């Protein structure tokens, strides 16, 4: 495993998903990992910490992932956001790309998919 220096933000209302994704990211060499349990928390953390990469869920209470990405991209046009959702419908993928996400990962994701994203980003 080669250590990378990416700062990654995980936004998902599920603590299980955050935990599992964190484990995968760590096994891929990421050690600087931030977590948010809601869209609004992700925006706040992004503005404060300026991560290199964001994994964003879509279906979340209050502010969903699409709205959160829109605000993050408004704040930082260079933001790298991956939408990660079980609901990868055509409409959701279209919306995600429209607001500025550069990748869509259908849950349940495989470690290889996550690793590939990290490699492409480096």
């Amino acid at each position: 495993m080669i250590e990378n220096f990416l700062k990654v933000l995980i936004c998902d209302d599920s603590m299980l998903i955050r935990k599992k994704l964190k484990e995968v990211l760590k096994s891929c060499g990421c050690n600087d990992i931030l977590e948010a349990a809601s869209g609004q928390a992700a925006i706040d953390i992004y503005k404060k910490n300026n991560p290199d990469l964001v994994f964003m869920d879509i279906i979340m209470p209050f502010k969903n992932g699409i709205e959160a990405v829109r605000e993050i991209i408004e704040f930082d046009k260079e933001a790298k956001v991956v939408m990660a959702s079980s609901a990868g419908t055509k409409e959701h993928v279209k919306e995600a790309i429209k607001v500025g996400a550069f990748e869509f990962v259908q849950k349940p994701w495989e470690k290889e998919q996550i690793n590939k994203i990290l490699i492409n980003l480096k």
Partner: protein
Amino acid sequence: MFSQYFGQYLLTEKYLTKDQLKTAIDYQQSVHLKLGVLAINAGYMNAQQASEVHQMQSKVDKRFGEIAVDAAYLKEEQVEKLLSSQKFGHLLLAQALIDKSYMSLEKFEEAIYEYKKKYNISDCQFEALQRDDVDEIINIYVELEGDKYEVEMKKYIALFMKNIIRFIDSEVYTSKIMKVEEHKTKCAVTQKIKNSINFQTYINAKPDVFALIASRYAEEELTIVDELAKDSVGEFLNLNNGLYLVGMSNRGIELDMEPQSEFFEKIIYSTYVLPIELPFGRIELIISHF
């Protein structure tokens, strides 16, 4: 999966006692299918012919297939087909019952015949059942006739069962679906699917079973219903519903869903309750229109 349904049928119709079924299920792991059972199941031979061949076997040093071909009960190609056929679950059960003398070949033939008749199962459907085709199993066993979302709900239930098999346990079957005026949950999570089709689904179980489902899905040891356990079962429902949305989207129907939430010790009015039996207990898939 189909063997669970067939076993329950044998029990309900009093072909067997509960203890006999349990012993046979335990024993079936070590069972090897014999050609006679396969031939009857495929409809190539009747029970009397199979018994005759068995009797002949005790007199001549020949295999079942050879004797059956000599007697013109089977063709060579049918023997080959039978030999290469899969180890169908319900046949392993049948073989175990016959080996244990709980059932004769004749009774087995009768049970298969009555079973097909009871559920109005065509030969083509029966073949699909034997392959554990989940869509066909749900189509036959889950009665939702007359419901405006019958097709969509059956697709949903079939997907749910596939995900149970994939993530929780492969030894699973459904009991009879019920439509009830009110139903009180114990430990439940729920999520709404909406737009052109609107229904709300729940996973409900007693605390110990709920914790086990959570534990299997999370792949972590969870013994009590804590926040992680609730989150895990909720995420399982969310994953299933997300995949349902993707499937519908591929068919040109765009649906959406709300975030999942917990629903403990509350009443649901006018709803379907589908009991799902797992080796470690029962869960309920509850589906309501809204």
